[in-house]
């Protein structure tokens, strides 16, 4: 599982340098934001010269799904001291959630599961920082014909397809996708924010109609 994150870290480093992000900032983004998919998009936006507000808004929208992970894990973590909650929250990525939620569900009576969370989270974190550094080092050595940026779309396909369970989910996805294509011409990927808003609204409408 730890190895699984490594190719993305390398690809992020390569893409960030390719987009013209300064070396130190590229590594700092991995430390400060620590969210693979949002980092890919932030690097693209920085490369395109997007305004700070757009970068912040887009990162927010792309990472908003982590609130679902937070809600899902909250009951298991509620007895922990505040420091633990902050530390584990910082480490709460897509991959960490996938590993940790299974462990919590399958080991109901076992105490001290937060140490497992910490171990998995720190392992992924170390792997992410190291692979980012490798990617930054390789930088422009990796030819664009390798199409490594396509792994972002593939990752999202793998994340989204399994959550499409109802018609309302499908409506949210299709409307979000179609609006994103139609609004792609808007500057600095503002189409993404518009598409997210329309997709969520469409999901809510279908959900209301079906109730």
């Amino acid at each position, binding site marked *: 599982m730890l190895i699984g994150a490594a190719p993305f870290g390398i690809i992020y480093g390569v893409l960030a340098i390719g987009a013209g992000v300064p070396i130190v900032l590229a590594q700092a983004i991995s430390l400060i934001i620590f969210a693979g998919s949002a980092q890919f998009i932030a690097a693209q936006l*920085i490369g395109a010269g997007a305004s700070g507000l757009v*970068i912040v808004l887009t990162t927010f929208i792309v990472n*908003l799904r982590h*609130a679902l992970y937070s809600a899902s894990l*909250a009951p298991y973590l509620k007895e922990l001291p505040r420091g633990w909650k*902050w530390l584990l929250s910082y480490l709460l990525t897509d991959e960490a959630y996938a590993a940790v939620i299974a462990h919590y569900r399958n080991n109901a009576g076992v105490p001290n599961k937060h140490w497992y969370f910490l171990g998995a989270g720190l392992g992924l974190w170390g792997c992410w920082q190291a692979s980012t550094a490798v990617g930054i080092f390789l930088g422009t050595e990796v030819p664009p014909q390798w*199409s490594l940026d396509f792994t972002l779309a593939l990752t999202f*396909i793998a994340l*989204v397809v399994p959550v499409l369970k109802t018609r309302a989910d499908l409506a*949210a996805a299709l409307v979000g996708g179609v609006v994103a294509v139609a609004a792609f011409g808007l500057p600095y990927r503002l189409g993404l924010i518009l598409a997210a808003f329309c997709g969520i609204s469409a999901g809510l409408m279908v959900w209301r109609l079906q109730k």
Partner: protein
Amino acid sequence: MSLWLVVAIAGSLTLLIRLSFISLLADWDMPPLARRALHFVPPAVLTAIVFPELLLRNGELAFSADNYRLIAGVVAIMLAWKVRRIMPTIAVGMAVLWLLQSFP
């Protein structure tokens, strides 16, 4: 705005999102509509990123057999539907793209 400040704000917001229900909003009784809206965030946002990657080339719609990303993406969607795992989906999607690119 300096890029460092932008990254610091984006990072803080990301941490706050992750902390939301674990700590900050632990005692908040979320209205059902907001809870439902949150439920639709992953499908809406993720496809909003995926669709343009598959369907557009240089900002133009590309519904054609030489749009290799679209073909590889459709294969990946079908595979993800079947296996529901991240790594095989990515590996096969990349393999299809590379194959199509190397035999024009």
